[in-house]
């Protein structure tokens, strides 16, 4: 049976799916320890030319260390890092064809914007005119014409971010490294900059490697995301794969909101699986090779995939009864918590999109309601 | 920058050696049995014994100690008040002059401060002795104490004081319950600095003391002008040991205090 596409995107750029594609960067079994702490543990990952890759994870998961090893600021204890087939071991940072945009931007406070951007070019021994031309080109690229004479402390946060970007791009690196590139910006500016960065990446065709702890940022910008957990990669994939097909409970819970119903498999018929849980008998349609009756399994369900009804729904599909426990109006949607009937009384999050400005059947606290969702909406998590 | 590289280690060893070797030589030769400075005549504490017989030196040390104790205490009080005035009172009439007078003694050559104070005391026809030296020392060291205390006061999180006030404490109560305990290490440091500066001062004391009130540095100075003497080595060693002990103890105390607070 031909499965439907995940999410609502059709991607044409997917070199990782092509066995003949040659990766540009390759981490091979890389391990890095700091004292007793293993920051990166036997990690293997390939980045493809032109890819926008995000390393996503909580602080301390090793994502920054992994990136700093590619830049040359940390040395792997074991394993290799290859760039265009060349082993980077022993090459100091200043000789590597990568450039980094630092989380703090690390703009040299005693130099003007011009000198900051020109710094890397001057190290290459570029002629004065060539330096000036390239700096001007970079300033245009980041829309900061006319700011060349300013000092970093005369710039706003967003402008500093652009200078840092221009400075890192000026040397035309093979790979641009971005350490929490939007972390210091406020929400509104973050979204704007996000799309500008994406456009820039598409325009330049460069490989970007970004470190972030913000899943929205990673989802919106990256071609692929590596979700990291304690020095290892929990899952690599396109954003919609990470979101709709999380490999395990860690990924499911880290990326986006999710409801998890724990239970036991009571029957497997092809791809139709039935699970007995505290919320009742649940049905889902998900391929699960080798799954046996009697195994422990959970059904994971995103809040936006659930409907709230005032009457018991008819027909197949899943349903559960409960009462409204909490309502949070968020503008674009309303997050409702429903307390299911029964001893466990599990709280289920439901995201109701606010498609119209007014509704005829508003909900209120303590209303009796029915939840309903498709058999294809749930994700099977084993164990 | 995580590991210490060879050139760094070399710079550290050379720098620290330069700072400590002269003192070490001095201490070493205070235990030399021989009177000759370059000849090692075996270990002996005879110069320490001789020190106890030197009544003039003991008198001078006692006077210096008294001056240092009194002047450091007065200087710390004035320093605390000045730091509060500069750090917590906003603008007041003559603040610029005040700040200037606090900073000036730090860069003023001691010979000038000493000369000026002496001319004042002569003009007032004051009898020169313990009190004139003490006043001179208070004037100099209060400025150092102010700087030390003010630095801590500036670092202090104002919201702590505001929180206390918000919870109903009067300004005076805020000062004694919040501000004072928080800056106590700096007050101690300021007192110590004032104490050691006073104990150490030769120039101001030479100008402002009178006959019969010779301080320890003055006594040491008049003997060493004539050359190196083992007795002075012994006295210096004792002084160094005293100051080093007090400073190390104080820094440990402050550190423990800081640790207890975190």
């Amino acid at each position, binding site marked *: 049976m031909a499965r439907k596409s995940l999410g609502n995107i059709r991607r044409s750029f997917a070199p990782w799916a092509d066995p003949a594609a040659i990766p540009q960067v390759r981490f091979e079994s890389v391990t890095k320890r700091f004292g007793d702490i293993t920051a990166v543990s036997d990690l293997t990952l390939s980045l493809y030319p032109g890819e926008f890759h995000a390393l996503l994870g909580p602080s301390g998961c090793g994502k920054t260390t992994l990136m700093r090893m590619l830049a040359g600021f940390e040395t792997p204890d074991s394993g290799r890092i290859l760039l265009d087939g060349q082993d980077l071991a022993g090459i100091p940072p200043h000789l590597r064809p990568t450039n980094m945009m630092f989380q703090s931007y690390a703009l040299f406070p005693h130099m003007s914007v011009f000198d900051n951007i020109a710094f890397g070019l001057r190290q290459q021994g570029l002629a004065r005119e060539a330096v000036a031309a390239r700096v001007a080109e970079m300033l245009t690229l980041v829309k900061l014409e006319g700011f060349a004479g300013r000092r970093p402390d005369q710039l706003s946060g967003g402008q500093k971010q652009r200078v840092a970007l221009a400075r890192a791009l000026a040397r035309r690196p093979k790979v641009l490294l971005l350490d929490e590139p939007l972390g210091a910006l406020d929400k509104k500016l973050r979204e704007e900059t996000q799309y500008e960065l994406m456009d820039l990446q598409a325009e330049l065709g460069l490989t970007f490697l970004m470190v972030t702890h913000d899943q929205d940022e990673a989802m919106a910008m990256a071609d692929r995301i590596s979700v990291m957990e304690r020095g290892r990669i929990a899952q690599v994939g396109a954003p919609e794969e990470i979101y709709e097909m999380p490999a395990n409970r860690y990924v499911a819970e880290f990326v986006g909101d999710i409801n998890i119903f724990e239970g036991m498999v009571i029957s497997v018929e092809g791809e139709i699986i039935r699970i007995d849980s505290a919320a009742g008998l649940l049905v889902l349609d998900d391929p699960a090779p080798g799954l046996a009756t009697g195994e422990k399994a959970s059904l994971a369900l995103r809040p936006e995939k659930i409907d709230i009804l005032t009457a018991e729904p008819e027909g197949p599909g899943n349903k559960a009864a409960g009462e409204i426990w909490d309502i949070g109006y968020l503008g674009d949607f309303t997050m409702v918590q429903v307390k299911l009937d029964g001893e466990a009384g599990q709280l289920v999050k439901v995201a109701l999109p606010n498609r119209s400005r007014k509704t005829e059947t508003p909900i209120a606290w303590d209303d009796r309601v029915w939840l309903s969702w498709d058999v294809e909406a749930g994700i099977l998590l084993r164990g | 920058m995580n590991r210490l590289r060879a050139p760094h280690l070399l710079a550290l060893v050379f720098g620290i050696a330069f700072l400590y070797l002269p003192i070490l030589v001095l201490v070493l030769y205070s235990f030399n049995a021989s009177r000759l400075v370059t000849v090692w005549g075996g270990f002996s504490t005879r110069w320490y014994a001789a020190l106890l017989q030197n009544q003039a030196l003991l008198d001078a040390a006692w006077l210096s100690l008294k001056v240092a104790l009194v002047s450091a205490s007065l200087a710390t009080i004035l320093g605390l008040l000045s730091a509060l005035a500069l750090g917590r009172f906003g603008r007041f009439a003559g603040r610029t002059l005040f700040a200037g007078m606090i900073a000036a003694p730090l860069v003023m050559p001691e010979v000038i401060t000493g000369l000026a104070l002496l001319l004042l005391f002569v003009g007032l026809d004051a009898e020169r002795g313990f009190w004139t030296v003490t006043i001179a020392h208070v004037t100099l060291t209060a400025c150092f104490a102010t700087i030390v205390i003010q630095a801590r006061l500036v670092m202090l999180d104002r919201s702590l004081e505001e929180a206390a006030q918000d919870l109903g404490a*009067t300004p005076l109560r805020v000062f004694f319950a919040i501000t004072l305990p928080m800056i106590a290490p700096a007050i101690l440091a300021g007192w110590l600095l004032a104490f050691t500066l006073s104990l150490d001062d030769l120039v101001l004391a030479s100008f402002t003391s009178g006959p019969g009130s010779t301080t320890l540095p003055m006594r040491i100075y008049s003997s060493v002008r004539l050359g190196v003497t083992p007795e002075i080595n012994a006295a210096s060693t004792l002084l160094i040991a005293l100051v080093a002990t007090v400073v190390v103890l104080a820094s440990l105390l402050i550190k423990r205090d800081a640790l207890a607070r975190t």
Partner: protein
Amino acid sequence: METGTKARFSPGRGWPAPRWLVVALPYAWLLAFFLLPFLIVLRIALSDTARALPPYAPHWTGWAEAWNFLQALDLESFATLVGDSLYLDAYLSSLRIAATATLIALLIAFPLAYAMASAPRRWQPALLILVILPFWTSFLIRVYAWMAILRPEGVLDALLRGLGLIDEPLGLMNTETAVLIGMVYSYLPFMVLPIYTSLERLDRSLLEAAADLGATPLRRFVSIVIPLARPGIYAGCFLVFVPAIGEFVIPDLLGGPETLMIGKVLWTEFFSNRDWPLASAVAILLLLILAVPLLAYQRFARKEAA
């Protein structure tokens, strides 16, 4: 209870009644024992030399007669200062010696401060105490320690002779070299501390960024470390240069007859020649000279802050 006490003291955010004392007490002290004495120095610098005790005229007899002093002013002492090349030489040589000492101190202090700032974090407090500790021990004793080392047949001579490096004594004692050594040694902590502070504050990611942009270690040092340590370097130079100019103890104990320094001249004029007006004039002129580095440093600091 809290509201009760609040009402008892003065209202608002001010201090209770003795608030003004906090300012007035130290203010009065400084006016009486700092500002007033300087006015007297200025006054006496402008009066005649006299052999009476106190050795100046007219005699100070009371505040009410201040006007009389003003009428007796003269510039004789300043004329002596300008006319006699001894004083000019002393000022110039003080500046030269202080500048040389500052430069040497900088050359020794910078590597030391850099090594301290680069050392592992947990060592740094101990290193800091090691550098500060000599500053707390007596200045006079530290200068005296060098007398034992530098004097003829002293520790240094004995050591070098023992190593077979010299046959004759070096004869360093009572020379300008000895004065320079004494100054560098005494004021080194003043140079190390501000430089260390500015290096320690230096954001490591700036060095990483420079490396990332292709700068070699030497380039990073010249383009990033030195410019960003500049406030510390200037502060250190200021803290060494200014006290060195007016220094008395070091040239007196370690210097020889030919090492001329203005602090020593002032001392001699006052204690040996008992020419109080001339000593006062020397002091006033020295203050004017000191104002130059002071204003220069202030300008730099203000520019830095802006």
